[in-house]
């Protein structure tokens, strides 16, 4: 697998100025945010028809870059996988959309907006997809609390019972 991937990685590194690294047999390439649309177009033409996954990681409290957006490509014709990582800053995070190249990115980018607050410029319909439309906050960020409810043990049972909302009828 590695030998078929080698020329592709070399081409991408030269054109988009990225750095490749390998971990446990998988290759991932870090490229800057402005070049992502061109890189996706290039990969689509090279035969990576399937965008398997589009997700993000939050590295709070590190502010720059705070997010890494990860694109996972699969090539069905040549049986290859490749990962692209794009660092995104924490203040006003935004990226250009790739939903005109890969239509699966449409809903995935909506999910990233909903969960992380990363805006995608040029997206046709950027609104919340998993949380209710009037929800505040972006749940998967590291500074968003888990919303943990205190477990009721015998010593605090009564006080939690009084606070808990119960439906009367």
């Amino acid at each position, binding site marked *: 697998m590695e030998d078929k991937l080698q020329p592709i990685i070399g081409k991408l590194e030269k054109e988009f100025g990225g750095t490749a690294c390998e971990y*446990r047999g*998988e290759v991932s390439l870090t490229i800057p945010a402005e070049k992502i649309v061109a890189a996706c177009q290039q990969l689509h033409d090279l035969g990576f*028809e399937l965008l*398997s996954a589009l997700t993000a990681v939050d590295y709070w409290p590190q502010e720059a870059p705070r997010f890494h957006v990860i694109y996972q490509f699969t090539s*069905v014709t040549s*049986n290859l996988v490749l990962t692209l990582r794009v660092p995104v800053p924490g203040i006003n995070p935004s990226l250009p959309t790739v939903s005109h190249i890969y239509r*699966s990115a449409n*809903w995935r980018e909506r999910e990233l907006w909903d969960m992380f607050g990363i805006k995608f410029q040029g997206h046709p*319909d950027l609104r919340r997809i998993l949380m209710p439309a*009037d929800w505040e906050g972006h749940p998967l960020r590291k500074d968003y609390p888990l919303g943990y409810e205190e477990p009721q043990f015998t010593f605090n049972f009564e006080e939690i019972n009084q606070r808990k909302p119960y439906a009367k009828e």
Partner: protein
Amino acid sequence: MPDIQEITVDDLKHLVSERAIQGETVLLNMGPQHPSTHGVLRLLLELDGEIVVSCVPDIGFLHTGIEKNMEAKTYQKAEVMSDRLDYMNTVGNNLAYSMAVEKLVDLDVPPRAQAIRVILAELTRFQSHLVWLGTSALDLAAMSMFLYCFREREYILDVLEMCSGQRMMTTYIRPGGLWRDVPVEFEAAVRNILKTFPKRVDEYEALLTRNPLMLDRTYGIGKLTGEECLNFGVTGPMLRASGVKWDLRKNRPYSGYEQYEFEIPTRTEGDVYARYLVRLEEMRQALRIVEQALDKLPMGAVRSNNHKYVPPPRSEIGVSMEALIHHFKLWTEGFNAPQGSIYTAIESPRGELGVYLESDGGPKPYRIHWRTPSFDNLSSLPLMSKGVLVADLVAIIGSVDIVLGDVDR
């Protein structure tokens, strides 16, 4: 108590056609509670009489926050939540999680564990296709299929209960192997399944495949070409019914699948009927794989020996000091995974189930993302449902085989 989101035409101007704004077409809410949506899926349909002009899915009614919740638990404890994602393919979710953790910490799995994993994963695939068949035939008004399929399913659930004690959420497949070895009645029960099920699948075929009602309702409905499928990220039987021969068990084999001989059914039409035929054939191939795996089942251990990550057997704790220390450390702190990130994928009954796991060197997953197949499969629904009748829409939703736990996570 917040009220239900009232969505007006203004909010959706960019999604529905201008005929809706003028009032020519009707906006109908096929709400979250509906017998044919297979879960809590809300569809906003724009109808011109009986024809669907556009269809906007509204998901998120089952959003459970599993990804964030798993970040707060150690690797051992987080596995329990993975069962509840795609609740038809519980064993497959455990398998994907275990494979991801094993890849991250570079853990070996003994061959007996791999073979049993394959047997259980294929039985789960069979069971998931049975539920799909039962419920989508029920939507097409073939009520007896529902009863037959659930009767068959009880045998498979008996096998799962025999191994792990639980019918559905087994958490039997753990990083490093299995929880414990299969009991002695396992082989007899699986052989019984292998003896009786092929005839049952023939019965289903006799009932549905050449049935003129079935053909009328499903032939030529909801077509998707292979290119459209790949562009939408659709994988699994939907992709294979559209002509693209891509199955992770053959193309990127895992857990010992390369040792077994089986075929990948593919069809070219890409409509609801083709998906039905592909899944029916997959059920037969699943039985074939189970038979080969059971015949070749090697003897040996079912858990890895690397006790830094895998708990030692209880019998050793009384006699060996290291076993006690490992057990203590695993149960109180959990193991520390090295820093790095990986992506693994398996072939679930719905498509490619992938896990992106990133670790920062601590005992809890720093970021775990589940690439669930039903999310992308569902995003192709607006395209498939342009210009079809409402009754056809029900058949199309049935053929996508969505599980809302998978879509919403």
